[in-house]
């Protein structure tokens, strides 16, 4: 592959500025950044969000968000990263220090360092889930399970129920969702798979940016897309697939009047493009002074969109609806990914072999997508340890391995209902929106939108539109602030409640009764809304204690189970608190570490770069 455009800059600076690693090729950096962005969210989260928020109509706010949110933030981050690289900084605290020497920059740098590291602590577990499912399909485990559960059944509804029930039970047991510590029990295969993924990630990342990340992404990304295209071809040639496509793509235009749809679309774009992570800043810092960022960034974003809209949008939900019906095609990310999709494979025409073949291929591609993403989560912290403290790669990798293990082990242990994972994910998402807002504000206001766009256009294949300074200065930050407020207002309540032992106990107790009530009235054919009304009549208003004496007789059988569930409340609330406090303490630690580095090694390197003429 051709080398990137060689820089003519600063031959002198090389004398004392640290030796800088660069990307091997332009395609390599595009695939590495796209690999970072393409993950489970593209194939599982996007279709779920679209189908639950207006179907085809969802794409209107989605593309508007892509234009005014996704592309501008990505351009800002790419430009800031490349600029930081000229100061000898491949790490977020160093880049922010070089561009804006104010106290909030330290927090922003720490946040951009914290997010990928903390996400990695649970993402490695998701990676292992995908690998486990892939291997289980290869071994024919699902085919045997389905054959056992559907033997003698001829009624389609019963087949669907049993198959979905079987995949649900497998998900709970294989991924340790039934109780805390399940993954550490004797005979747990998942523990070994997590270790295996951990090793694979660290071995690749140890090889460095070019020989590790870029090398892996250059074969993994095309392979991933090829696998997805083969599956897509099979899906589009299924009989009556137009029903599934109709379910996913038929637009409900009235949904455009609902602000929640706009929030969901902008959130999807935001989380999908991996902006606000600190990863793009890190990756683009390995570019040379005159390397293009405009087309390169757009290429990475468009590859991500291809995987999301075309591969994600045409495969999962249409097939799930076709084979399993609307109820199973509208789940959340995990239920769609790890319960519905394995169940779909039972219904694939051609018998158990083809079901297992496509199942293994699907989870294999998800595994590759997860590895390319998790590699990108490790590099920013490694770069920080190298730039900030002069550590060699071996030392940085070893330290980071210990730090991420300290977070990954509790996340794996507190696996009941993916409790620790869920709470960590929530706080990381919150930090991401905060970091992205800060980054755009720094770019638009501290660096200056016009000056920033001028820098953006340096070496660009084509200039960014003239209105971009206005968008970066006003539109994108305003959009991000609205998302930050609306997203926090919508979601934070539940997670804060989850940290209270009383609220959590109550929630668990009511959950058991609500399930029993739904089963009771569901059997009588009552629609969901009517069941909701009856549930509130029986249990009283939400968040109030249940009056056990007033429960109907048929519900009193559930009392023991409800008591047991209630007793788990304090433990789980403590786990939620542990996650929150852990993240806050880690943030403070990273801010202090960033401050020390900026006062010493990073500060000296930046000063040296400035002395040699590097300026904004």
């Amino acid at each position, binding site marked *: 592959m051709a080398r990137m455009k060689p820089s*003519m800059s600063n031959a002198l600076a090389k004398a004392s500025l640290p030796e800088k690693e660069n990307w091997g090729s332009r395609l390599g950096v595009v695939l590495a950044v796209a690999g970072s962005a393409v993950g489970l969210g593209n194939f599982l989260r996007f279709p779920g969000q679209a189908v639950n928020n207006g179907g*085809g109509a969802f794409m209107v706010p989605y593309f508007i968000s892509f234009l005014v949110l996704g592309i501008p933030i990505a351009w800002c981050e790419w430009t800031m990263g490349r600029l930081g690289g000229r100061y000898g900084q491949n790490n977020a605290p160093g880049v922010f220090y070089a561009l804006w020497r104010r106290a909030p920059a330290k927090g922003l740098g720490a946040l951009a360092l914290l997010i990928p590291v903390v996400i990695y602590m649970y993402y490695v577990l998701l990676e292992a889930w995908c690998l486990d499912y892939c291997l289980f399909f290869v071994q024919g485990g699902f085919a045997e399970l389905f054959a056992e559960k559907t033997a003698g059944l001829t009624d*389609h509804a019963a087949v669907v129920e049993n198959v979905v029930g079987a995949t649900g039970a497998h998900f709970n047991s294989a991924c340790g969702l039934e109780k805390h510590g399940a993954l550490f029990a004797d005979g747990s295969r998942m523990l070994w798979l997590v270790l295996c993924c951990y090793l694979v990630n660290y071995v690749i990342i140890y090889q460095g940016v070019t020989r590790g990340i870029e090398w892996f992404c250059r074969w993994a990304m095309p392979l991933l897309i090829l696998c997805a295209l083969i599956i897509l071809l099979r899906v589009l040639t299924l009989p009556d697939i137009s029903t599934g496509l109709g379910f996913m793509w038929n637009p409900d235009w009235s949904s455009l009047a609902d602000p929640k749809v706009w929030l969901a679309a902008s959130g999807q774009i935001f989380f999908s493009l991996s902006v606000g992570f600190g990863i793009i800043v890190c990756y683009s810092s390995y570019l040379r002074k005159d390397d293009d960022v405009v087309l390169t960034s757009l*290429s990475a974003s*468009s590859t991500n969109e291809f995987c999301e809209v075309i591969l994600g949008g045409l495969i999962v939900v249409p097939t799930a609806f076709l084979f399993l019906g609307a109820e199973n095609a509208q789940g959340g990310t995990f239920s769609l990914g790890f319960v519905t999709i394995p169940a779909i494979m039972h219904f*694939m025409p051609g018998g158990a072999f083809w079901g297992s073949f496509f199942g293994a291929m699907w989870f294999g591609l998800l595994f590759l997508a997860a590895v390319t993403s998790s590699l990108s989560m490790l590099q920013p912290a490694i770069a920080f340890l190298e730039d900030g403290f002069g550590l060699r790669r071996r030392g940085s990798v070893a330290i980071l391995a210990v730090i991420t293990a300290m977070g990954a082990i509790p996340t794996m242990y507190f696996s009941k209902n993916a409790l620790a994972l869920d709470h960590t994910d929530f706080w990381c998402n919150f930090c991401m929106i905060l970091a992205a807002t800060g980054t755009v504000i720094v770019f638009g206001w501290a660096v200056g939108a016009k000056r920033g766009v001028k820098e953006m256009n340096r070496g660009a294949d084509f200039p960014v539109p003239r209105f971009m300074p206005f968008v970066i200065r006003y539109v994108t930050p305003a959009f991000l602030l609205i998302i930050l407020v609306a997203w926090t207002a919508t979601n934070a309540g539940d997670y804060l409640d989850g940290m209270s032992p009383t609220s959590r106990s109550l929630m668990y107790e009511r959950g058991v009764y609500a399930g029993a009530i739904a089963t009771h009235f569901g059997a009588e054919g009552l629609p969901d809304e009517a069941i909701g009304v009856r549930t509130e009549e029986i249990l009283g208003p939400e968040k109030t204690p249940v009056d056990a004496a007033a429960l109907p007789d048929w519900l009193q059988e559930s009392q023991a189970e409800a008591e047991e569930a209630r007793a788990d409340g304090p433990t789980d609330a403590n786990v939620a608190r542990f996650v929150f406090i852990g993240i806050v303490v880690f943030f403070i630690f990273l801010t202090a570490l960033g401050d020390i580095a900026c006062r010493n090694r990073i500060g000296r390197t930046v000063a040296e770069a400035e002395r040699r003429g590097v300026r904004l």
Partner: protein
Amino acid sequence: MTDFFLLPILAQTVRLTVDGAIVMAVCVALVLGLMVFCMARILREQHPQEHHHAPLDINTHDTDR
């Protein structure tokens, strides 16, 4: 595999409407068009760049004293 698998669900079917087909086609075309445009430029420009800039890397020693 079962030969009855589609029937019950097709009964409650939702066919792809003209609106749906247009939205789907436009989305696919937009995303595919953008990706092809970007990738074509990235791939096309790799080799010319190399040839264009390669001489700058060669030290001819013509300024050595």
